[in-house]
């Protein structure tokens, strides 16, 4: 299996788009809610795909999943790994809420303006 652990020599990238953010809704916060809903949908899809893989693997091995899952307890190590994963999960969904701050930090001096809105 590929090693996806954090590479000590990796250089952090900037994930936020710099400059002016696009807004479409008049009511405050709706644009952010759209972004959060899309993040949620994406993360739900990740879970669905992983679950489908899990069920498929389990079936191949003859494991009856519902009973086994119900009675399962995570080890301390697994719980810690899930907790760490959860932080990333939350951060991805609520990405839009840190975006404004990050964009401000990477503010261009002279962003070429889009044409005036008609």
């Amino acid at each position: 299996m590929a090693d996806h652990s954090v590479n000590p020599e990796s250089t952090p990238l900037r994930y936020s788009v710099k400059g002016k953010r696009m807004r479409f809704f008049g009511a405050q916060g709706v644009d952010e809610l759209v972004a959060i809903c899309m993040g949620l949908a994406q993360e739900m899809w990740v879970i669905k795909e992983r679950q489908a893989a899990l069920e498929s693997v389990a079936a191949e091995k003859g494991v009856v999943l519902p009973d086994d899952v119900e009675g399962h307890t995570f080890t301390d190590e697994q719980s810690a790994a899930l907790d760490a994963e959860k932080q990333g999960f939350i951060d991805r969904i609520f990405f839009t809420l840190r975006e404004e701050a990050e964009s401000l930090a990477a503010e261009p001096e002279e962003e070429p303006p889009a044409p005036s809105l008609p």
Partner: protein
Amino acid sequence: MTESIDHDLKVSHTKDEASRQGFVAGMRGYVLNNLSGHMKTVWDRKVEPAFEKANGRLPEDGPEVHKTFKPETIFKFYSAMRCNTQEMVWRSVMPAVEREGADLSRRAQVLSQAGDKAEGTVETNPNFQVPRYVSELDVHMMPGNYHEERIDYDVTQGAVFDNGLSVFSFGLLGDRMEDITESVSTFFQARYPDEQPKKILDLGCTLGHSTLPWKARYPDAEIHGVDVGGPCVRYAHARAQSYGVTAHFHQVDAEHTDFEDESFDVVYSCMFLHEVPLKNIKGVFKEAHRLLKPGGVMLHYELPPNSMTSPYDGFYLDWDSYYNKEPFYKAFRDADAKAEIEEAGFKKDSFFEHVAPSRNLYGTDALMDAARQDGAKNDSRVGRFGDGVMWYFFGARK
């Protein structure tokens, strides 16, 4: 969703990252096919009839469609979801690139120095000044754009763009994501069989997707690509070496290259001009004219001009100029390319324009059939990223 990257700079995404990418690609398909279809229906059945009733006429151009449509809920959701999907494209691929950045740089150097499969070269300039219209933007919302560098022999932004493009194009660009130039160069060769270019230049080449297909059409030709992004030309060269295609890449501004006068037979660009301000496009045309041998051909793959599209399609294609960090796109689509080209010194009345069916979607026979027909026909599929896309290109002769 990064299956179309099969060269030696491929990065390894986790299962969850791959799921995220699959979701984004699916969302793009949904937004650009389904949601955009719903939006057109709302326009046709509700908004345009209401406009006509109120004004006694139809909207006359894209901006009028835009202004009329802007308050509609469907427009707001389409726009907000397109913006979010666009941002999610890059974010879905960045973790793997971030993890492997230093290793990518090493791999790129090894590929660039290896001469066993190809003998291309790459030239970067540590003192190069990236034009401000590039350095001040995250073009199409790609954090870091084409040029930002953080480490030695940095290819990171090339990798972000390559992997992101693979998610972005959801299969529309075919194997190696070279469909546009595969289609355009195949069309060009069929349409102009007497052309036997010995030297071809690709302006704003980024990762070489638009550069390498020319070598397949004209194996004896010397192929060059230029771009302002150092990470892009390094990545392009390593990618070409990995594929065993000899091509030469240079970090220079397309307006001010250091090639000799009259040294190229074909000067080409793909998806480049719409990211350049009009005054600099004029400079690019002049530079292309300087570089071409007498009788040489300049051609550009681009979005079709507003003069060729309906008001609704004009609005639809210009959306990116307002909302996708591509601010120069509309001015380019509004411009009269023929007049600009003639002003740059190209032969009067040598202007041509064509629509090439996507080879990936329609096959080579359809492409050959189209090459036998004259002119570029107005069709809402032209330049519109979605099912059935066709590619528009134009050019002129020195």
